[in-house]
């Protein structure tokens, strides 16, 4: 009988038990004629065992409270598949105010507009961390300078923590989010009735310009703009005008066609 030629891929698959049905015999026959390859494959198999034991011995026990909390939140999200649907729609949603109401602009915006990642993440962060007044924050408002330094270091830009006291909003705290392409600083503010507002800052431009652009999705209003080195996204359950007012407080221009 002639022995099939066996390539490296099949030798690897032999080690991993991933050979297609019926190929083991062919590989064994080939190894019979190539004894010099046998120790190498045996060492690969041994290597697998060693790696597994090594990683198992080093792995943390899995009781980190933050991890467990995130795990529960994710389980919850996966059971409610509709839940994330609005964000996908948000990615193509119209900028009603900024785009104006002519049908041409409407469809153009609908088809072409994609929300910057910062806005999608800010909305999600607001839902996950901001909307619930019971949920603790990682960086408390007490350590404002520390927070500013921490954000500046991670975002790679000088970050100031804006005060919104003048318009009755108290800083609750903040956290650093991984972001799609670069880290995002999330700040949470609260009014006297404990309604929360999320402000996200990123060093990635959103291409929105200096004037705030508004989006409304299922009860949440989001506004975003670029302010020089840092771009901003605001999310809250609040009327447009209110959001524009807060954005102006933070230095954004008003949208041209607001009124």
């Amino acid at each position: 009988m002639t022995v099939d030629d066996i390539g490296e891929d099949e030798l690897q698959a032999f080690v991993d038990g991933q050979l297609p049905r019926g190929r083991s015999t062919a590989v064994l026959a080939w190894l019979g004629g190539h004894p010099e390859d046998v120790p190498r494959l045996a060492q690969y198999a041994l290597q697998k065992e060693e790696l597994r034991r090594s990683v198992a011995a080093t792995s943390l026990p899995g009781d980190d409270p933050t991890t467990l909390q995130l795990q529960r939140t994710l389980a919850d999200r996966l059971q409610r598949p509709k839940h994330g649907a609005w964000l996908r729609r948000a990615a193509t949603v119209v900028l009603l105010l900024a785009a104006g109401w002519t049908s041409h602009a409407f469809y153009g915006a609908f088809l072409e507009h994609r929300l910057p990642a910062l806005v999608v993440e800010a909305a999600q962060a607001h839902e996950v961390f901001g909307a619930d007044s019971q949920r603790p924050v990682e960086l408390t408002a007490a350590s404002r300078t520390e927070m500013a330094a921490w954000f500046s270091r991670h975002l790679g830009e000088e970050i100031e923590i804006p005060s919104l006291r003048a318009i009755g909003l108290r800083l609750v705290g903040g956290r650093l989010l991984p972001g799609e392409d670069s880290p995002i600083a999330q700040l949470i503010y609260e009014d006297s009735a404990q309604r929360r507002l999320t402000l996200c800052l990123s060093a990635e431009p959103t291409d929105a310009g200096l004037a705030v652009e508004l989006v409304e999705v299922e009860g949440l209003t989001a506004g975003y703009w670029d302010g020089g080195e840092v771009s901003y996204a605001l999310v809250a359950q609040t009327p447009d005008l209110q959001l524009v007012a807060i954005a102006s407080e933070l230095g954004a221009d008003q949208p041209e066609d607001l009124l």
Partner: protein
Amino acid sequence: MTEQDVSDQLLRHVGGLRRYALALTGGQQEAEDLVQDTLLRAIAAAGSFRRGGNLRAWLFSIMHNAFISGVRRRGPRLVELDDEIVAPASGQAQLIRLELRDAMSALARLPEPQRAAVSLIALEEFSYEEAARVLDVPLGTLMSRLARGREALRQMTRHEPRRSLRLVEASKAGAKR
């Protein structure tokens, strides 16, 4: 999927993610951070997960992307192993501890693409097709990374053949099914 199903599956997969994170980063705290980063991204992307889809492969892809973008952000760094793994011990225990350190530190010295391929296959028993999907590379690329990674690991650890041989015997009794 029922509520219990999803929670159970997640519990299992997070264990796997933690191992993969450890293999990728080489440090316990870095690994836990990467697991959290991954879960956070998964929460944000939960709407894009197809019902009945491959949850494990989905989570591992997210982790891989999170790791890659983290490396780009922070730049590559030298991996240091935690001290307690190599804490002094005696006899067989010490031998095993040294061996463990060798396996992890050898893995840490592989280029990231090879480390990822070897980890998915050797640690988590992904099928080749699944692993290629997780890493978003063609099957042929995965296979060559796997082969090169394994060979590099072998070259790194081959200078002490006797120790390895003793450990096979020691581990086989307990670890073989």
